[in-house]
């Protein structure tokens, strides 16, 4: 069966075929309950993603970047992290945020235009601020990893980034620092085939996972639409990190089924029929089929998950749409720990005392 162009080359680690048939060892160390939880996360994530598209159309959100098609890559990797581990997102990792326990309404304050990348508490959630300047967050994650190591903790830090972001200098500097300091860092690249309108084939002439070797650490390529495989390779990277073996680069092959953002007209640069073809690789159908076939779940479960998602999404929606507009003081209150006299004067001028 043919696949997206950027999946060509080295065969990725894969456990489930697109149709759900098992081609690897499906025992990745998860209990039946956890296996079902993975599914629940992916379904919730997708339903919320679609709701966000609707909220944006209805003017409740500003520009929104959908992740449909990337649920397995985000959920599988985030699920492999422990409570003490950190994750640093780009602007498209809402699914990972949910797995990390970030409050979705709080998270969506960013897309509502209420506040910037850190609307939730990055320390409490160990989930870095939503980060738009691509690849910069890789260096932050590596810094966290170095810090954790200095504290003798066995926790690690994972940085999400895309195929386009991997062309930035910060990818190289961060990856090299992680290698030199043997930092417990995981560089997780979601290669979804596109950087806005630019296909991966114009972004790089090589395979992203292979860059690790040149920097002296292991890289691995995984089917990013196979949640079990993603969980498996990430778990292995986490193990290496905890053992003090240093960083791992993971290239997860996935596909961006939606537009780059709600402001993007993807039909200008790609053929929507092609996109429909790649729906055949849908991560949720694939995993659902296996869950049922392997008897880890039944139709009742699937229905229950669906109902749960419906209820949950309308809660989130309510939380988002009922949120108050931010007070004007917020413009001034956190530029410095203590507002300097001249800025206090500006604050007064703006807010009238």
């Amino acid at each position, binding site marked *: 069966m043919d696949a997206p162009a950027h999946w060509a080359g080295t065969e990725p680690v894969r456990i489930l075929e697109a149709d759900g048939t098992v081609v690897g060892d499906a025992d990745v160390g998860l209990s039946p309950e956890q296996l079902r939880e993975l599914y629940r996360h992916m379904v919730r994530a997708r339903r919320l993603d679609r709701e966000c598209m609707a909220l944006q159309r209805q003017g409740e959100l500003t520009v929104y970047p959908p992740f449909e098609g990337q649920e397995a890559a985000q959920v599988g990797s985030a699920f492999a992290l422990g409570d003490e581990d950190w994750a640093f997102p780009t602007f498209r990792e809402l699914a990972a945020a949910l797995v990390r326990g970030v409050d979705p309404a709080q998270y969506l304050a960013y897309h509502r235009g209420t*506040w*910037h990348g850190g609307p939730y508490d990055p320390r409490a959630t160990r989930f870095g601020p939503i980060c738009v300047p691509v690849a910069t967050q890789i260096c932050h994650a590596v810094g966290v990893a170095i810090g954790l190591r200095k504290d003798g903790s066995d926790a690690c830090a994972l940085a999400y980034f895309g195929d386009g972001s991997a062309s930035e*200098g910060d990818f190289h500097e961060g990856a090299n620092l992680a290698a030199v300091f043997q930092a417990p860092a995981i560089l997780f690249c979601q290669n979804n085939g596109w950087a*806005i309108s630019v296909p991966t084939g114009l972004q790089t002439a090589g395979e992203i996972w292979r860059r690790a070797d040149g920097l002296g650490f292991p890289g691995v390529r995984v089917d990013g639409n196979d949640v079990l495989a993603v969980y498996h390779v990430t778990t292995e990277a986490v193990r290496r990190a905890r053992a003090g073996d240093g960083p791992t680069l993971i290239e997860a092959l996935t596909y961006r089924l939606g537009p780059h953002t709600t402001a993007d007209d993807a039909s200008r640069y790609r053929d929507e029929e092609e996109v429909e073809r790649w729906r055949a690789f849908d991560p949720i159908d694939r995993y659902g089929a296996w869950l049922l076939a392997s008897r880890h779940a039944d139709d009742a479960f699937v229905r229950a998950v669906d109902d749960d998602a419906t209820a949950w999404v309308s809660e989130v929606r309510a939380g988002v749409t009922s949120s108050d*507009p931010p007070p004007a003081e917020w413009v001034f209150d956190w530029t410095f720990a203590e507002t300097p006299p001249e800025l206090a004067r500006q*604050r007064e001028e703006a807010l009238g005392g």
Partner: protein
Amino acid sequence: MAEWTLSGALNRALLDAMDEDPRLLVFGEDVGRLGGVFRVTDGLQEKFGEDRVFDTPVAEAGIVGAAIGLALTGWKSVVEMQFDGFSYPAFEQIVSHVAKYRNRTRGRVDLPIVIRIPSFGGIRGKEHHGESPETYFAHTAGLKVVAPSGALDGYRLLRLAIDDPDPVVFLEPKARYWAKEEGELSSDDPRLGEARVVRDGDAAVVFTYGAMLTRCLDAAESLEGEGISTRVVDLRSLAPLDVPLIGRCARETGRVVVVHEAPKTLGLGGEVAARVMEEAFDHLQAPVARVTGWDVPYPPAALEAVYLPSVDRIADAIRRVTSY
């Protein structure tokens, strides 16, 4: 008469310039197939081919650095930084090389590079999409910095920037991309470096640029009722500044307001105020008033209005200087 949006006029400027000069290239992130996130390069790749209009990897330093090498081989470049906040990764290439290359080579190497940057706020954008980077570039010796306020000037200034033998940082006010202006596109006069009196008046003068121009004009209108006649000047060229015109207007009115979106401290308002003092001290009737963004990071969409100079803030400042 034809009607133009800023986006359309800039697109036409690129098309005409590429038509005239077969060695002019346009490249950057998403400028080819997509035609740019603001459509400024729309249709150029179809017309001129992938050899002259091409998409690049996401690598701003590489894009600007490559433009330098292309200039050494006789290719002129118009490169795009997708948003103001994403010009910062290229800062070293711009400051250490683009700005200094002619000087470093004792005038032997021209760098006819135009760095287009969709700039400023007012579009309910996310963080890093509403930056006002002009101070960073205008303070850097060797760079020319231009900011059009509308379609006709946009066409004119971009053509002039492309024809200029020196590197030009071209700041396009996002908030004006879709605003329409009537008139014929033309690239004769002015030369880069000349400001423009957009509205006449003798009680006070307001210096501004970019998307703030319309707000300043609105403020000026609103004060006619109060019998305050306000001159409004579009600086257009932020580096070099049109010091003679700034001086003349300051001397003729004696009362000066400067308006911009950038934070107050070390924004252009301070530089203009200093120039005004140097050029018109004995004519000044009031301290130069600065109406600017506050000294804070650009706020999220919901709070843009608190940050951006409003027509009221501008009008108050004009009242303040005229009643001083």
